[in-house]
Structures are given as structure tokens and as C-alpha cells.
């Protein structure tokens, strides 16, 4: 398993944001976390990415406990995340932003006297990553001048530039028009294949996106896992669908929208998608 949560509880005072969540994500999986507002989705991503520590239970990344390693340690170990609210470096250009990630990945953060401008390899890679995300026309633009959608892409692109094994995305398509959402998802899947990302975990509200791209869907409700199943299995479960979507979804497209597999899928057998979890 790449990333697993074992009976994770998170209390904020007396409010129980996560109430015994168990979850495992293996290589080659694209997992979506869904659920109504306040279900604990963002808390789960924060716990999985080591940003907040669970009140009880454990989170393991490649078998090692995530607790206390912090975002820096985890980013270096191969787990990256992009935030729900757009996080960019306002005054840094698109190229510089990607250069930060690539420099970090190459372990050159502390190089004091190495020239940055003359590092051909670095800027070639910056250009490559930018072109995957369609940002190659804006390399010299400060991030603050980008349109909102491109800021979001830059945020995600910089996380991908770390070449992480696992990437956690908190609503990668929020604030983006429906037409652009599919384009963004296509870019994400393509980028994952290109950069050796083995698993994507995303929080997402748009059910078209969720059912179109996920291998597995984890439905949260009031801090518990309501269901953990393939899109097809989940669609058959009217009760769960009613809770997470608020309506039955019969018109959903089958999960065939994705055009490219994640990289490890070619080499490894597809992990068991699991069966629908019991209703809580």
C-alpha cells in the first residue's frame, strides 16, 4: 500500500471531524473522496498529508507513520498536495514557481552559489512541465497576474513537478467552469503518467468528474466512511447515492472518460477495487 489510514479519528474540541476512518490507496489508483459539506473531506486530506495529526489512529505512507513528519518531510518523501484555496507565489513567475519545485526535488534548495539562470537542465524541465499543463505561454508572467484557472493549474503543476508517488488534490477543479473541468482532469491524468505519479487522491464535488475519472470513490458522511467502492458499484447503491449526491444518479456516464492509465497500471495488476462498505 502506498498510503493508508487506520481507524483515524480527529476531534476539534467536542466536534468529531473524523470518526474512525480506514482507507488504503495502492499504486495505480485514482481515488476520489466525496461527501456533503462538513463530512470531513478536507480534514481527511489534511490528516493524510501530515498537515494535521489525528487524535487517534495512524496514517502510513509506504509503511512509515506520517505523524510528525510535517509537510516538508512528506514532500521530500514523495507525497505532494495542492490546496483547496489556490496557493501560488504571487510575485514569482510561472517559470520560477516550477523551478522552486524542481530545485527542491533535486535536493538543491541549499545551493548558495550555484547559478540558477544558467542551469539549462532546470529550465528545460520547467518548460516541459509548463507545456504539460498548458502554461508554456506564460513562463515569465508573475503568478498574481494569471487568470484564476491558470493559478489553479500552476498550483497543481508545481506539486506534480515534485514527481511525487502520491498526490493529494483538494478540489482541483473548484471555481472552474464545467467545460474546463474535463480539460483539467485530462491534463492531470496525462501529467501523472508523464511524471511517474502512482496514485492520485482528490476531494471533488463535481459528480461527473468523480464518476468519470475515479477508480474508486470513498464517500464520507459525518466523519465516517459511508462507502468505499468502484463508481459502478456505487451507482448501484441508491441509498449511498442519495446521501452523497442528494439524488439518484442514473444518467451518469460510465467510468470510461479517462483516456490514459496511471503509470503503474501497466506493470501491476489492477488492485481489488473493493466492495461497497456497510452503511453506518
Amino acid at each position: 500500500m502506498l498510503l493508508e489510514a487506520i481507524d483515524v479519528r480527529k476531534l476539534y474540541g467536542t466536534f468529531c471531524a473524523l470518526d474512525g476512518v480506514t482507507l488504503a490507496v495502492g499504486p495505480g489508483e485514482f481515488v476520489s473522496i466525496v461527501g456533503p459539506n462538513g463530512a470531513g473531506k478536507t480534514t481527511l486530506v489534511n490528516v493524510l498529508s501530515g498537515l494535521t495529526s489525528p487524535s487517534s489512529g495512524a496514517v502510513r505512507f509506504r509503511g512509515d507513520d506520517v505523524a510528525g513528519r510535517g509537510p516538508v518531510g512528506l514532500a521530500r518523501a514523495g507525497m505532494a498536495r495542492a490546496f483547496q484555496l489556490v496557493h501560488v507565489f504571487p510575485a514569482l513567475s510561472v517559470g520560477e514557481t516550477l523551478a522552486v519545485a524542481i530545485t527542491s526535488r533535486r535536493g538543491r534548495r541549499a545551493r548558495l552559489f550555484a547559478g540558477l539562470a544558467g542551469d539549462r537542465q532546470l529550465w528545460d524541465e520547467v518548460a516541459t512541465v509548463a507545456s504539460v499543463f498548458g502554461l508554456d505561454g506564460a513562463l515569465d508572467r508573475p503568478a498574481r497576474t494569471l487568470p484564476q484557472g491558470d493559478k489553479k493549474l500552476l498550483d497543481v503543476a508545481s506539486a506534480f513537478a515534485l514527481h511525487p508517488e502520491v498526490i493529494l488534490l483538494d478540489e482541483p477543479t473548484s471555481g472552474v467552469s464545467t467545460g474546463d473541468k474535463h480539460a483539467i482532469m485530462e491534463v492531470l491524468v496525462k501529467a501523472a503518467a508523464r511524471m511517474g505519479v502512482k496514485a492520485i487522491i482528490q476531494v471533488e464535488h463535481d459528480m461527473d468528474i468523480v464518476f468519470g475519472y475515479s477508480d474508486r470513490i470513498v464517500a464520507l458522511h459525518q466523519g465516517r466512511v459511508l462507502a468505499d467502492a468502484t463508481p459502478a458499484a456505487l451507482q448501484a447503491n441508491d441509498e449511498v447515492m442519495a446521501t452523497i449526491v442528494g439524488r439518484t444518479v442514473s444518467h451518469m456516464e460510465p467510468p470510461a472518460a479517462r483516456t490514459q492509465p496511471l503509470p503503474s497500471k501497466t506493470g501491476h495488476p489492477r488492485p481489488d477495487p473493493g466492495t461497497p462498505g456497510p452503511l453506518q
Partner: protein
Amino acid sequence: MARVIAVLLGVALLAAPLVLPRYQITLLLPSFAYGIALLGLNLLFGTTGLLSFGHALFVALGAYTAAYLTTGFGVRHFELIVVGAALVAVVAAVPVGLLCVRYVKIYFGMLTLAFGMLFYSFLYKFYTLTGGDEGMRVLRPMLLGQPLAGLNKVDFLTGPFYYYALALLALAALVMHRIVRSPFGLCLRAIRENPEKAEALGVSARRHRFGAFLIAAVFGAVGGTLLGVPTGLADPLLAYWTHSGNLVFMLLLGGFDHFLGPVVGAIVFIFLQDLIMSLTSYWRFVFGAILAVLVIFVPRGLLGLLDARTRASA
């Protein structure tokens, strides 16, 4: 544009002793010292986004190192004094920096202020070690192994020492230029812009801020060694908080988002101070007014003004 300013400034400073009266040349000496110290301060403020109100601590440390080495240990080689001051600065900056970089914004500023005042009190009260309010003498150093004993003080200061200080400033600027444009410098700017995002990309905000703090301390102390030579004195007021305030003033005056802003700020400040002090004894009042005008109308400093000009004409 930046390159043009650098070349013009360099040529002007090289030619200054041939053109300007000697008094003006002696005024340039402290501005070179401050220029070096401010290059360090600006790595913290302009690049990393941390405003220190205690940078004078390291300037004073450099001046006292020069005093100790020349009077106490008979070390006259200025190269050794510079290296010694840099080492002392690192030793002092490690504990101070480890504490200070845990905080940001006003808390960082206040903590650096507190450490500066602690050091001032130490210099002021520990008479036997530091000479108390009388300070310590800084003897004339040897430059590149040359004793230069035949020269009178003014000849020494306006001749060899002037060019030595200018060379040291140029060297400091080249080193800092390299640092700012290195991967390390890029990470510092990323941290200034968004520390949370930088950490998500595997760049530790605290470690990088600590690194910047150490470098700033070294530049402060190296500047401090130059400061003691013209006056022949290291005195506790060098560590006083108003001195730190002056450093911040110089930075705002020159422009903190321009690489040479610190150097220009230091030079303009010293000449402005000399001019206003010769006109009125209320020079602090005038300076306060200038600072207010600066912050309101020219927040990016003199070089920022120049940038705006070129952009408007382009």
C-alpha cells in the same frame, strides 16, 4: 537598468577621490560599511520578508571584533579581522537566529530588537570587558599586509583604506548577487511569497530563514569592521536600537526591492545626515519628516522611483 546603475555607481565611486574634497571621501567610508551591512539586512527583508530591528547587533559585533583583535591580540591584518568578525557573527547568530526564525512579522522584529538591546546593555555594563560607555579603540589595520605607517590618518583613510573598503563592498555585492540568484535565493523568495506553499514543495521555511539570518549576520559584522576604522572606536551606541532603526531607514530610502537599493540608501543617508546636521540641530526632526514622506510617497525607495521613471518613458 540595474546593470547601468551598478556600472555608473562603480565608476563614480572609483573616481570620487580624484574629484571630491577629502571630507566627502571620509563620509563615503561609513556608507560603504553600511552598504555591506544593508546587503545582508536586505537578504532578510527584501528577499525573505523578515524585518529585523536588531541588525545593529551584528554591526557592533564586527566593530568590537576589530577593536579586540587590534588592541587585545595585536592582529592588524584587516583580512584576518574580516574573517574573525564573520566567525564571531556566525557564533552569535546561531542561538539568536534559532530563536528568532521561529517567529515572523512583528514578532520577529520585536525579538531581534530585544536581542540587540541585550547586547547593547552587555556592552554598556560590562566595563572591564568592553570599556563600557567609552567603548574600545580600533587601531589602524594593515591592508593586504601593508602597514602604511608612513601615511597620516586622513591620507590613509582617503587613499588606501577608501579603495580597500570600496573593493570589499564590491566583493560583498557580487557575493550577495550570487546568493540572491541561487537556488537558495529562489527558495527564500518563495518563502517570502507563501511559506505554506513553499513547505508543501519540500522547502523548509525555518531552515531557509535561519540560513538567511546567518548570512545577514555575517554581512552585518563585516560592515561593522569597516565602521570602526575611520573613527578609531567601537562604542556601545553601535548596538543601540536607534542604530538598527537607521539601518532600516537606509533600506527604505534606497529601495529594498532593488538589488543596489541598500548601497544607494546608505550613501544618500550619510550625506543627507551630514547636510541636515550642518544646517540645524533638529536634524532628527527633519529625518522623521523625511521618513514619513518616504513611506507615504516613495514606498519603493529612490531606486524604485527610478524604475517607475524608466517604465513610464518606455
